[in-house]
């Protein structure tokens, strides 16, 4: 029986792996981070149904962990590829967790004792985590990982508090990176996307003004499992944010940055405005948009509800600049398309809907796999063979191809599974 190598353990990689596994094909699922789950795990709710993201994702993650046809390689990366379609040979590097996966029970005693705090990437640095950590509670696998860069023992040779309290004797400071060869008939790339850093757009004051945040930061704030347990508060003073401005196309549809449209931001800003209102009835939201793009299933109806039932105001405009007043209220300066006049609005919180961009590592991965990237840095695919890359036997799904919403990514993942399975007979 031949196998398929799936690179990337977000929702696209998970769906592709599960479809293949259910077809009786052996899958190696390689994820760079300590857990699968990807971006979807960071989301609070999902439009247009407002389903809790983790609640619908976690069962699929658990299924990946339990499926007899799926071998999970978390905290691992593909470092080399030889061979051709039908007989690829990949080298996979497993980074040391310094925790024995087979022994760790995920009980968290070590986390309680670890003295080192570092910014928590999963929560966009809005809170801290320990140097030994589980990325989020539903992580798969349910084991701890030591962040070697910050671990006092690994850096300075002293501490070892985690090892002392671990009843399972799972801490292993001697672990080293391990390399493994994986044979696969086909490969699916599902490495996802990154977010554009709005610091590059100084007019929006992202790094300057505390109450200017990105959409993903807000997503963590409104999440019940996030750093504020769902309270949407202003970073400057901890007061609830009651008047929120959402700035669309930050870095997108912009010749100086991303020429493309990021496809999901009109909807995720609407969703965040709805969720903010659900959390606190006093919230008023304003969405500053260029063209409102909502052509997915049920999207226009969702936006109509946002407008009518949740009182979200949509302002067709171009935002020129954000400044702030003396109490850190962001002031949005925009040209109102209705009147063609400049206008300004003071808000408690300004949220930047930043572009979905290719991960920087996509280029090197594409080079390593011998596939091409497009003009923007996404994996190149053909409009009429949408999940085929430029190399036979290698397929791509989800946001490594471009910006897509979750259902589109899931569809592409199933499609890639079908294409890979056909190669793989």
């Amino acid at each position, binding site marked *: 029986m031949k196998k398929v190598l799936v690179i990337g353990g977000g929702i696209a990689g998970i769906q592709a792996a599960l479809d293949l596994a259910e077809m009786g094909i052996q899958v190696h699922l390689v994820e760079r981070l300590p857990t699968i789950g990807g971006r979807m795990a960071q989301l609070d709710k999902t439009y247009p149904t407002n389903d809790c993201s983790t609640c619908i994702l976690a069962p699929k993650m658990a299924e990946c962990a339990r499926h007899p046809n799926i071998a999970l390689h978390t905290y691992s990366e593909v470092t080399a590829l030889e061979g051709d379609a039908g007989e690829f040979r990949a080298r996979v590097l497993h980074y040391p967790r310094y925790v024995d996966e087979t022994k760790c029970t995920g009980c968290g005693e070590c986390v309680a004792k670890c003295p080192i705090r570092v910014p928590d990437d999963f929560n966009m640095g809005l809170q801290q985590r320990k140097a030994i950590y589980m990325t989020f509670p539903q992580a798969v696998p349910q084991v701890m990982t030591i962040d070697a860069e910050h671990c006092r023992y690994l850096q300075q040779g002293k501490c070892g508090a985690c090892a002392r309290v671990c009843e399972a004797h799972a801490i292993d400071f001697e672990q080293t990176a391990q390399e493994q060869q994986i044979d696969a008939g086909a490969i699916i790339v599902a490495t996802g996307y990154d977010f554009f850093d709005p610091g590059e757009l100084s007019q929006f004051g992202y790094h300057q003004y505390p109450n200017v945040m990105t959409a993903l930061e807000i997503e963590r704030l409104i999440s019940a499992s996030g750093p504020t347990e769902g309270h949407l508060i202003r970073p400057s003073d901890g007061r609830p944010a009651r008047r929120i401005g959402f700035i669309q196309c930050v870095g997108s549809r912009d010749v100086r940055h991303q020429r493309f449209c990021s496809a999901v931001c009109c909807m995720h800003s609407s969703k965040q405005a709805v969720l903010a209102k659900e959390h606190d009835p006093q919230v008023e939201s304003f969405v500053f948009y260029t063209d409102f793009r909502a052509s997915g299933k049920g999207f226009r109806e969702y936006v109509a509800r946002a407008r009518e039932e949740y009182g979200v105001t949509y302002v067709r405009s171009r935002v020129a600049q954000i400044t702030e007043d003396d109490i850190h209220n962001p002031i949005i300066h925009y040209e109102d398309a209705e009147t063609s006049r400049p206008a300004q609005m003071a808000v408690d919180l300004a949220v930047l809907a930043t572009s979905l961009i290719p991960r920087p590592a996509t280029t090197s991965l594409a080079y390593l796999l011998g596939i091409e990237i497009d003009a923007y840095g996404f994996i190149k695919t053909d409009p009429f063979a949408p999940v085929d890359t430029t190399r036979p036997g290698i397929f791509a799904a989800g946001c490594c191809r471009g910006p897509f919403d979750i259902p589109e990514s899931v569809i592409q993942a199933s*499609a890639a599974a079908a294409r890979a399975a056909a190669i793989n007979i």
Partner: protein
Amino acid sequence: MSHVTMTQNEETRVGVFVCHCGSNIAGYVDVAAVTAYARTLPGVVFAQDNMYTCSDGGLTEIKTAIKTHALERVVVAACTPRTHEPLFRDACREAGLNPYLFEFVNIRDQCSWVHRLEPEAATQKAKDLVRMGVAKARLLQPLEEQEMPVEPVALIVGGGMIGMTAAVNLASRGFQVKLVEREPELGGMMLRLDKLYPTQDDAQPLIQQRVAEVRRSKTIEVFTASTLHAIKGFVGNYDVTVRDREGRLSSFKAGTVIVATGARVFTPHGMYGYDGERVVTQLELEKQIADRRLQIANCNLQPAVSNLKRVVMIQCVGARIPERPYCSRICCTTAIKNALELRELNPETEVYILYRDTETQGTRYEAYYTRAREAGIQFIRYSLDHPPQVGEGRVVVYDELLGAKLGIPYDLVVLSTPLVAQEGAHELAQMLKVPLDEHGFFLEAHVKLRPLDFATDGVYVAGTCRWPSHLEETIAQAYGAAARAATILTKEHVTSSGVVARVDESLCRGCGRCVEVCEFGAPALVEVAPGIKVARVNPVMCKGCGACASVCPTGAMAALHFTDGQVMAMVRAALLNQK
């Protein structure tokens, strides 16, 4: 522990696991108190709380407790059975317990989340719910799952690009495919297209190549000019009858079904002066362009043959209006495609596209929009407050950006109309027992994570019968649906749930109300003696919803796992006046 076993020998041994769900539950409900309370309930010999009962560690603890404490019933009080019940059932199964001896108590979605402001009341409610769950658990019975063989044949309804793409993929993996197309020819909507966006490639070579692949395949059987006449059965085992235009019937068995019947272009009768001559639809324009190109090729005409000076395209005609609120997704790009073709035929032709929002999302379509603007196509934004007026020789539109009224003389007006539900979608949906949305498009099982599945096992959907989508997207859907179907077709057996309805034939008087009410066609009346009929339930088709049990006038029909006895025990437990 052996001491407990000795003294409570007759009692069913129940174990209770109460989940913190991080702070989702524990932030509002006193989980330790609920756990302690559970220990006091009749039958409970073991109770513990877990940070995450669904974690690997939590599941291992359940399995260990089943063995160590000889548990006969397991109750988990946690998030929701909607997502997590299969996980806990599997844990029971792995520990040797019949998975239906498990009861889920929902103390998150239906308790902690909705009573955040009243933690004490939430804790009391969690106790009440656990008490009810334990009362039911003691009466649970082991249920049997049925294994049925799978017919490795896919039925695909719709022989357009999408149905054919799915067919070719499945055939290449060795599965038999039965492809049913209503028209005499394979190809569907793409037969009527001239060019494809965003490449301006010719549509016909691509579709004809796919037709040839289908025709070449030895494992695809094509039924053209045919429709689905009848389908009975269930996942893995469908009996299908197809009827052709002469009324001839063909029958075969199939294991899965893919619905790919496409959509129809809305005809804008009575709108914007639509007459099919000077005011036409995009599809009619596309045919004119194709005919013109043919003329050019045949008559050696000069390239600049289109004598159209000005063409005005109006977007959202019949879409994003109160009676049809959705955006049809493909009309902006279709307009751009035809506008570029008009400019190609005659670079002197001015094209104006009157739009509301340009729906050119992502990389490819935004680039396409840019290309259109660079090609000199004029985009003018209008709003529903001031819709364009098509007059004699002139379209008047209020330009939202300019804030002024414009009068544009025209030779041709082109109306961009939405895709609407295919004819016959309703009948097909009824036949397959799958739902449609309020617009008549097929409704998938879950809009986020099961976009190509129906709630009915073994039936899948792809293409514009699901939702207006770009060709690129629908091709992905075709492959995706093929993958989903293959997850069934590769299996030798499908397993049905044990939670089904069962008839006590001695009580059944054959009234047939269960047959009427069942959405899944599971019960059927069977003549057991001359003139005496009773209902019988096909367990593989039954979803265990209980609709039949609730209408049964004699109490003959029982919804297993939700029997009257079990439900009454819960009700009694709920009414127990606990402190």
